Each structure stands twice: as structure tokens, then as C-alpha cells.
């Protein structure tokens, strides 16, 4: 008897059928990978299973009984524990990391009513120890970088007594090291009989973990593949076409560097380094969590100042004091964690797809102050077709888009206007394999600027970039020129 | 600096007296305080003024605070008898002399100074009858819960029962940050709904000001007459303005009442006898009289109408006669 049996599950949002008669099974001691392009309905399925909202039609049987959770609490109580896709659903500002780790325990009353600081710390530390993560327990949760939030969500979920564990893109902002630790833990749990539903766009994850892969397409489960999983075939089922080689032709760097850093020091004590990026070049920076990727990019974007050294943009000294400054100089950045850095809350003015796109370009697109005219709509429509964004229209509320499609909108925003240097911090979080190659092609089709990408996934780095730089302790270390050779994780210094 | 020939302790000066108000904001109370301060200065009194915020509980604290400060006398300016009765008794027990203004503490040791709200309302209403006869349709402005207004209301109710031909067609009123304008908004609605209102009794000058504004806005200033209580410089200007429907107000001079209150407590401290009830008589100010006398400000009024600026209530030969 399967642990979980999903039959003809459907769910619509307005005119969108997010789930259309989806079927799925998982058994004890099995890891099932759920694959699917952005907007295929994966998160919708997860949300129904975890009691966030109900299905319109269809049945779920869990442990043999009909199961229709009315609230997240009910699902957790029944033994279904979920790590949700978006990181803004993990903890709350004002709470410490330790509290965030124990939030489930508070909610299900397995912690005593009265708490002492030392007990909270001890219990939180135990949760971390069990998974081997290291996090600052006393810090405010809101101060955590995206990756650490993801670690909190994972550690917390693993600390629950569960029979079914659902992970919706848990490695989206993790680096190789943490990912591998997660694999170890999941395999151990699986051996203990836990059933795991695992969603990811990273083939490496699935290769390491999946016993079976269910591929979703347009709200249905379009195919199930047993181990050894034929990924090429699975991907074809997923995106409906063969994946063309994502790596574009390498091009020689052209002319003078667009951007240079000289003798630059990001933080006191860090080793100074030099960097130059040429026109038409895509440079990726990779490194462990907290190695300084985001710091480097945001320093270039004017959020911090260098403790030492100079920056030059097209040979002119460049020392931005604010993002506004940087943008005016022709530098744009898509920051990591789209919810915090790019999106408006639901129902708020500016929360539509087109408005998300236009926010930095208002002055350019509407030089006459008033927002009359169709520019926004046109730009949105063109982005939707160019990047195959799945949305109900140019003014669809951004919160109704699937995670990967939201990310595409964020990229489209900075892609819409020319510039000199484009900074992308973890740009492919949650973007499916097919879309990633679309985006890379779109980005590279413009040769008028230089692109600097920060990513914690080395494979991704080699896939998109002409040149890959390695960063460690806030200092750039080595430079590897990408070529067609397939680099494996082991080749990188760690 | 003491006063020569004054009884102890005023011969040495520096007598500590507390003035504890229920409400401090507004012209009436400021003027009352000013009068009290002026009188206190002349008597060499170290007057401690405790601010009132319409907070009865806080007034209790303040009386206790005054006891802590070791004052010789306390003047209580308005308040709720229930909430301060027992602390006042504590003060009396501690040998402190207490005088109350417009709050009936029902305590034989505490004389009460009254400006007599009943009297104020009666004077204004009598003038209304004199001007309009005993039969008219009236508008009435009232908000319950403010002690002086409640007392004036009692007179209005009595007046209505004595004059059955007077019909109250509309009753309205607001007390807020913008009492006058809010009242005028309501008055406009009331006038529009009741075109036959000829007389408005607005026993608080802010109310009268609002009603006048409404009458002006609606262009019916020549058809209604407003009778009110209280007076200030601004009021005098409004009353005497050309075509003003505000024809009379009854008032006491709050500064005088303040001075009388201080004198009463000073006399008690000096050991003299003070009557249990000290009434400061209000005067009726009509539009015609004010215009004829050419009165523009309260100071003019005081100069031209001595009965308004002085009171011979509770005084003694060692107390200087002239106040200002």
C-alpha cells in the first residue's frame, strides 16, 4: 500500500488550471522527485498536501485514509511536514534564529509552556546538530541571508516527526557543500522508512537522491520514470522539447574592460584583489555560503563602500553611494531573494507583473511624469513572450505567478533597458532547466554590456559564464576559463 | 516679601498655596488662573498651579501631591465631588485650608465659591423672553457630561416647564477640537430642517459662535437671535459686529472669580471667618448695551462696567483693593 495516493487532483485559480487531474504515489522509504517546468503545478500540489488550501476536485489518501487537511496544522499533525518554496514563509522578524527553529514545536505544543533562554538555545542547537548546520542562534531571523533561511527551514522540518517530508526546492540558494550534507541526511531518513517528495530544478540533486521521478506538465503528471532515471527523456517530457546545449559559444572578450576593480578590499582583513569584466562577457562568481558573493555585487551596486581600492567604469573612477547612483551610471543589479529585493506585497499598487518590470525604468519610460501610455504593457508583453513567462496577462498580480516565473520577471526587469554592467545575484533560483537556457540566450544576445553573476551552484556557473571566478573569505581567488569540458564539483578548490 | 500689617503668615510672605484645576485649557480657565495669580502676587503667595486635563483621577493625585508639598491652602477649581471628597478631607485633616470653586464638596470645612451657572442661564433666558415674548420655537445647544453645562441645562429644563409656549425644536451640540465649527455644521442641519427656529439658547460661548456662523452661512442672521453664557474679547467682537444675531450673553469675569477664590483661601489661612457660600454675581451683556458703550475687549468691559471687574466678596482691609 502506498503511503500517499493522489488521484485526479485539480485546482484552478480563476482561468488558470494550476492542477488538472494530477496523480501521484509515494511509498515508505522512497524519495520521489517531482519535476516540472515553472508553473507546471508543483507548488500547488505541495500546498494542497500541506493544508495551505484545499483542492477543487480529486482525492488524497494518506496512510490508507482519505485526507483533506483544512489547515497547515492539520497536515503537520497527520505527519506531513513541508519545506515551502518561498523563503519569506519561514520565520518572522523580531524572533531569533533559535525561535525560528523551534516554531513548529511552539505551535504543536511539544515545547513546555514556560521557556527559558537557555532551554530554547539548547533545543535549537540540538536541532542544528542533528543536521550538522551552523547558524547564529541569537541573531534576529530577519538578518539572515537567504541561504541561511533555507537552512533554518530544512533543519526545522527535519526535526519534526513526519512520515512524509515534502521539500519544495530546498537547495535553490544553497551551495554544493550544504546540498551534499542535505543529501546525506535525506538518504539516512529514507533508510529509516521516511517517504520524501523532493522538488528541484537541479539535476545534480535528483541524480543523487531520486528513486523515482514524476514529471509534471500543465498541471498533470505526464510521466513517471524509475531509477536509473533517464534525465534527457524526463526533461523532454517536462518542457516538451529537446534541451539544446545551454552553453553558448564562447566569445573572445572584446576591447577594453567595462568594469575594473583595483586592489579592492571588501571587508577589513580580507585580502585585496583585482577584477575586470569586458564588454559582452559573462563572468560568474561562485563560492561557499557567506564567502562574499553578495557583498561583492552589492558593493559594486553602491550599497557598501570598499574598505580599500578603487573601481572604474569604462575607465572613469566609479564610487557609487547609493543604488540610484549606480543605476544612473549604467550599473543594474537583480538582488538575491526576490521577495525582499524586488516584489511588492499582494494587492499593493505596483504588484502587477508589468509594474514590477517598470519600477526602475519609470523615469525613462514615462518622461512626462504622468503614467499615461502603453509602454509598460508593451514591455511586459514582450518579456512574457521572450522569456516564456507563464502568466494570465501583463497585469497579472506577481503573487499569482509560480516561483520560477516570478524570478523570470525580476530578470526581465533588468534586461529591459540597456546598461554597462549587469549584476545578477543568484539569478536562476527556482528557474527550470528549459527557461534557464532561454534566459541565458536572451542575456547573451546583447553584446553591449558586461554581466557579473553570483551563484552558489558551480555547475550553473560553468553553464552560463565565459569565465568563472572563485571567491573565498571575501576575496577573489582563482579564475577558471569555462570551456566545453564538464567541470565537476570536485575540481573546485573548497 | 510680606504685607505690612497683615495677619500671620502673610506678614512674612511666601505662603504656599496650591491651585488645582480640573481643566486648564480654554480662555475661561486661563483667565481664572490669571486672576488667581494676580491676587496671589499681591498677597505674596507662592502659588502652585497644577494643570488639569479633565482627568478626575489625576486631580486626586494632585491633591495628594499638594499635601506632600506642605502647602498651607488649596483652591480646587472644578472637579467631581465623588472623586476628590475623601482626599480633600485628608487635606483638611492635615490642617490645610481648602476652598472650592464650582464644585460642591458638601464639606463644612470647605467654603464654595460659585459663579452660579443657574443664575447665568436664568439671566440669558429672561432676556430671551423680554426680546421675543413668552412663546417661540427654539433651538438648544447642549452636550451632557460637562458640569457647568449640566447645571445650565437644569435651568433650561425648568424654564421650559414654566413656559410651555416655548418649544424646543432641535437639540444639538458637539464638544471637540473645533467646537465652534462642528457646532455650526450641526446648526446648519438643524436650521435647514426647522426653518421656524427663531431663538437659539447656546449656554456656552463656543456654541453661540458656531450657531452664529451657521446663521450667517445660511443668510438667516436677521431671522434668529442667539442667547448665550460666558464672554471673551473675541465674543464681544462677534456680538457687536454688524448684523450679528448673537444678542446677549450672561457672564461673570473669570479673573475676578479667580481672585475671590484666592482671597477666600488666604482669609482662611489667616484665621478669619469665611462664609460657606460665596457667590460671584453674573451680569447680562446685551448687544445694544455693548455697542452703546463702545466696548471692544474684556479690558474695556472691566473699565466701563465696574461690577464686572471687581467683587467685594470676601475681602479684608489688609488686602489691596485694586487687582490689576
Amino acid at each position, binding site marked *: 500500500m502506498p503511503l500517499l495516493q493522489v488521484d485526479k487532483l485539480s485546482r484552478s485559480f480563476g482561468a488558470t488550471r494550476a492542477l488538472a487531474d494530477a496523480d501521484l504515489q509515494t511509498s515508505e522509504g522512497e524519495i520521489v522527485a517531482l519535476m516540472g517546468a515553472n508553473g507546471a503545478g508543483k507548488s500547488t500540489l505541495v500546498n494542497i498536501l500541506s493544508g495551505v488550501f484545499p483542492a477543487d476536485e480529486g482525492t488524497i489518501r494518506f496512510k490508507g485514509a482519505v485526507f483533506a487537511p483544512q489547515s497547515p496544522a492539520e497536515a503537520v499533525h497527520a505527519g506531513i511536514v513541508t519545506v515551502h518554496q518561498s523563503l519569506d514563509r519561514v520565520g518572522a522578524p523580531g524572533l531569533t534564529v533559535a525561535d525560528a527553529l523551534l516554531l513548529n514545536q511552539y505551535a504543536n505544543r511539544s515545547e513546555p509552556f514556560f521557556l527559558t533562554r537557555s532551554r530554547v538555545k539548547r533545543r535549537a542547537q540540538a536541532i542544528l546538530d542533528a543536521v550538522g548546520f551552523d547558524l547564529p542562534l541569537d541573531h534576529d531571523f530577519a538578518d539572515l541571508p537567504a541561504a541561511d533561511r533555507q537552512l533554518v527551514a530544512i533543519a526545522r522540518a527535519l526535526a519534526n516527526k513526519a512520515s512524509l517530508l515534502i521539500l519544495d526546492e530546498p537547495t535553490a540558494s544553497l551551495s554544493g557543500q550544504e546540498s551534499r550534507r542535505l543529501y546525506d541526511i535525506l538518504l539516512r531518513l529514507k533508510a529509516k522508512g521516511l517517504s520524501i517528495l523532493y522538488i528541484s530544478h537541479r539535476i545534480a540533486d535528483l541524480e543523487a537522491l531520486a528513486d523515482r521521478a514524476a514529471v509534471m506538465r500543465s498541471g498533470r503528471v505526464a510521466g513517471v520514470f524509475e531509477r536509473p532515471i533517464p534525465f534527457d527523456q524526463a526533461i523532454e517530457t517536462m518542457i516538451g522539447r529537446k534541451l539544446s546545449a545551454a552553453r553558448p559559444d564562447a566569445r573572445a572578450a572584446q576591447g577594453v574592460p567595462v568594469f575594473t576593480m583595483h586592489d579592492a578590499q571588501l571587508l577589513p582583513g580580507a585580502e585585496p584583489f583585482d577584477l575586470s569584466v569586458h564588454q559582452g562577457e559573462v563572468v560568474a562568481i561562485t563560492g561557499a555560503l557567506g564567502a562574499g558573493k553578495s557583498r561583492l555585487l552589492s558593493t559594486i551596486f553602491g550599497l557598501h563602500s570598499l574598505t580599500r581600492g578603487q573601481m572604474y567604469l569604462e575607465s572613469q573612477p566609479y564610487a557609487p553611494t547609493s543604488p540610484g547612483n549606480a543605476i544612473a551610471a549604467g550599473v543594474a543589479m537583480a538582488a538575491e531573494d526576490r521577495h525582499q529585493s524586488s516584489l511588492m*506585497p*499582494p*494587492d499593493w499598487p505596483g504588484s502587477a507583473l508589468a509594474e514590477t518590470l517598470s519600477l526602475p525604468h519609470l523615469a525613462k519610460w514615462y518622461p512626462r511624469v*504622468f503614467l499615461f501610455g502603453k509602454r509598460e504593457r508593451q514591455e511586459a508583453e514582450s518579456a512574457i513572450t521572450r522569456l516564456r513567462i507563464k502568466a494570465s496577462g501583463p497585469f497579472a498580480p506577481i503573487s499569482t505567478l509560480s516561483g520560477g516565473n516570478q524570478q523570470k520577471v525580476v530578470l526581465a526587469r533588468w534586461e529591459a533597458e540597456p546598461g554597462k554592467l549587469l549584476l545578477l545575484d543568484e539569478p536562476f533560483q527556482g528557474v527550470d532547466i528549459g527557461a534557464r537556457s532561454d534566459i541565458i540566450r536572451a542575456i547573451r544576445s546583447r553584446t553591449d554590456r558586461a554581466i557579473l553573476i553570483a551563484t552558489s551552484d558551480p555547475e550553473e556557473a560553468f553553464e552560463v559564464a565565459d569565465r568563472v571566478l572563485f571567491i573565498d573569505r571575501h576575496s577573489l581567488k582563482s579564475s577558471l576559463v569555462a570551456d566545453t569540458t564538464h567541470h565537476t564539483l570536485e575540481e573546485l578548490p573548497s | 516679601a510680606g504685607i505690612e500689617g497683615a495677619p500671620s503668615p502673610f506678614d512674612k510672605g511666601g505662603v504656599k498655596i496650591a491651585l488645582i484645576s480640573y481643566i486648564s485649557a480654554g480662555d475661561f480657565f486661563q483667565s481664572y488662573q490669571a486672576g488667581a495669580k494676580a491676587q496671589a502676587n499681591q498677597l505674596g503667595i507662592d502659588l502652585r498651579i497644577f494643570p488639569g486635563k479633565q482627568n478626575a483621577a489625576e486631580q486626586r493625585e494632585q491633591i495628594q501631591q499638594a499635601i506632600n508639598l506642605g502647602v498651607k491652602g488649596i483652591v480646587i477649581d472644578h472637579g467631581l465631588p465623588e472623586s476628590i471628597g475623601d482626599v480633600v478631607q485628608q487635606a483638611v485633616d492635615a490642617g490645610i485650608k481648602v476652598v472650592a470653586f464650582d464644585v460642591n464638596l458638601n464639606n463644612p470645612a470647605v467654603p464654595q465659591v460659585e459663579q452660579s451657572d443657574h443664575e447665568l442661564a436664568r439671566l440669558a433666558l429672561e432676556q430671551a423672553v423680554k426680546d421675543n415674548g413668552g412663546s417661540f420655537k427654539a433651538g438648544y445647544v447642549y452636550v451632557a457630561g460637562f458640569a457647568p453645562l449640566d447645571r445650565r441645562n437644569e435651568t433650561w429644563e425648568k424654564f421650559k416647564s414654566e413656559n410651555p409656549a416655548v418649544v424646543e425644536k432641535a437639540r444639538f451640540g458637539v464638544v471637540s477640537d473645533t467646537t465652534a465649527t462642528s457646532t455650526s455644521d*450641526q446648526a446648519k442641519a438643524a436650521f435647514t430642517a426647522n426653518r421656524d427656529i427663531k431663538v437659539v439658547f447656546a449656554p456656552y460661548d463656543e456654541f453661540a459662535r458656531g450657531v452664529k456662523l451657521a446663521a450667517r452661512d445660511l443668510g438667516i442672521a436677521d431671522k434668529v437671535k442667539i442667547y448665550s453664557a460666558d464672554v471673551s474679547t473675541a465674543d464681544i467682537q462677534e456680538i457687536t459686529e454688524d448684523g450679528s444675531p448673537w444678542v446677549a450673553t450672561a457672564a461673570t469675569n473669570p479673573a475676578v472669580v479667580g481672585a475671590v477664590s484666592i482671597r477666600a483661601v488666604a482669609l482662611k489661612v489667616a484665621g478669619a471667618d469665611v462664609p460657606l457660600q460665596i457667590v460671584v454675581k453674573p451680569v447680562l451683556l446685551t448687544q445694544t448695551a455693548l455697542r452703546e458703550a463702545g466696548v471692544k475687549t474684556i479690558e474695556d468691559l472691566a473699565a466701563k462696567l465696574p461690577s464686572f471687574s471687581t467683587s467685594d466678596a470676601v475681602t479684608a482691609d489688609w488686602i489691596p483693593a485694586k487687582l490689576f
Partner: protein
Amino acid sequence: MTSFNEDTHPLPSNISELSARQDSLARTLQNAAQKGAIFILLAMLVVGFSAAQPAFINVVNLMSILQAVSVVAILGAGVTITLAVGGFDLSIGAVAASSVMAASYSMIVWGFGVYATLPIVLAFGAAVGLANAVLIVRLRVPDLLATLAMMFLLTGLQLIPTAGRSISSGLILPNGTTSTGAYDPHFLLIGRYSLFGTIPIPVIIMIIAAIMLFVLTENTRVGRLLFATGGNEVATRLAGASTARLKTMAYVISGTLASLGGIIIAARVGRGDVSSGASLLMDSVAAALIGFAVLGLRRPNVFGTVVGAIFVGILLNGLTMLNIPYYTQDFVKGVVLVGALALTYGLGRSRP
């Protein structure tokens, strides 16, 4: 404040209950009912009051309703703007109250006329807004706290020049001199004159201010950025906008509008009257918040604020016409508010 939005979205809408299952006619109707709840109620009120008291519906009375709400609507628009940038201006009531004092002081003590007084008072309001902005933007004091402190400060400050007395001609200053100025008759016209004998100047000011602010917030670049600041300040900064400047702008506009409200009050009353502005604050906040419900937008919006102010104005005027005692009026106001809100927010959200 973002929290308003979050409150109305127990879960972000991509995971929230949507009513797609219901057939579309019922849904459209419900939608209309929800968006129009306030208007339907308004219509019912107007019809009811007119039936009970025909004088209610005549132009003069309707104008006096508009006149009565003009100050609250103008102040409410200021609150709306600060709500849009994710802030909250608790000082507007006090700014309006002290503007009344400032206008009176300018004319009566300094003897200025209307043309000097107006800029002085408006500059005063703008300056207070700027001070709020400095506290909030530079010193990072939370909005509510900064403007509350400013409220206390102004409540006291306005009384100091005259030692707590109200200002009218012949005022004796604390230093003993008697002031000789008077209200400029032209200034009084601002509060008392009616265009074509029907439309009072305050109503015209309200309409102009409302249109300007409506266009600013809904149809301009700056408006979009103002809302963006309130929606996600970080994202707005990262998009290159100066949120510090936008917030400052919002508070300066709010302060200036409050002093404009104060000017109208001064011109109606004709003297500098002492008050804390507390009830003005509450009424304007109410208007701005009711505005959320108008059109079912669930966010601050200038149009809604003005409608909200008018809604309350109609209610109070009608009740007064029916000679309902004042204490029942507050109650009715509360009941109608609760009803309107429940209708707007409750509809189409059957699930807890």
C-alpha cells in the same frame, strides 16, 4: 503600512482561497457588491434621509455637508499619503490646531494680512512635516513614535506664545503689551465666502487638493514610487529610487495639507482657538481608513478618503436633521462603520 495589506491577506494570494469555483455571474455580482458596498450604503442613507426630511436633499444642505467635511477630507488626504509610503502621521491634528494659532498670531500679533499669513502658515506646516521626516528618515525613529512625539510637542508649543490663551484682537501678550492687529477680512473669506453664492471656498479647496493628490498618487511616476516605498522599501531603494526623499516628500505634503486645513478652520472661526487636534486626528484617520473599503481597494487611496469623509459627513448631518441626540450619533456612526466594513471586507471571504 504594509501590515494593512498583510492583514487582509492571511496568506499571499497565490496560495489563498479564490472564488473561481463559483459561477461567474454570482461572482461578478458579489464583486460589485463588495466594491460598491459603501456607495450602496451611501445611496440608502441619502434616500432615507431625504424621505424623512426633504430639506436634506437641497443644494444648500449638500453644500454645508461638503463644507463640514472639507477639513477632515484634506487632513485625511495627508494621512493617506503617509500611509502610502508605509508611514503614519499622528501629528496632523496638532499641526492643524497649531496652524490656527499661527494664522491668528500672524494677523493679530504681527499685524500681517492674508498674503503674508498664508505662506507663513503653509511653510509652518511644511516645516513640521520636514521635522517629522528628519526624525523618521535620518534618525530612523518609527513613524508612529516620531509623529506622536511631534504631536505632543506641537500641542504644547502652540500655547506658549500666548501663555495658553486663545488669540483674538486685543490679546494681551505675556509681556503685557496689547496686540492691535485683527483678522484680515480677506482671510475670513476663505472660510466664509461662497462662489456663485453656492459653493463655499473650503469645498473648492478640498476639491482641488483632492484632485491634485489623486492624480499625484494614482497617475504619476512619483505616486507609483510613493506606494512602492510603502510596499517594499528595500525593493524601491534597489530599483534606484531615493526612499528617503520620497518619505520626506510624503510627510511634507501631509504637514502642508494639515496647515491648509488649519487655515480653513481659522478662517471659519475667526480666532486662534486652543485645542489639541485629537478629534481632528481621529476623524481624518477614520476617513483615510474607510477609504480602504471604498471601491474594495483595501489600500490607502485619496479618492476613498474623500468619499469616506463625505460618508461620515452625510451620516452626521442627516442624523442631526432628524434631531437624533448627539450621543446616539457616535453610536450610529460606529454601527454604520462596522457594517460597511464587514460588508466590504467580509464578502467573498467566507473562509476564515
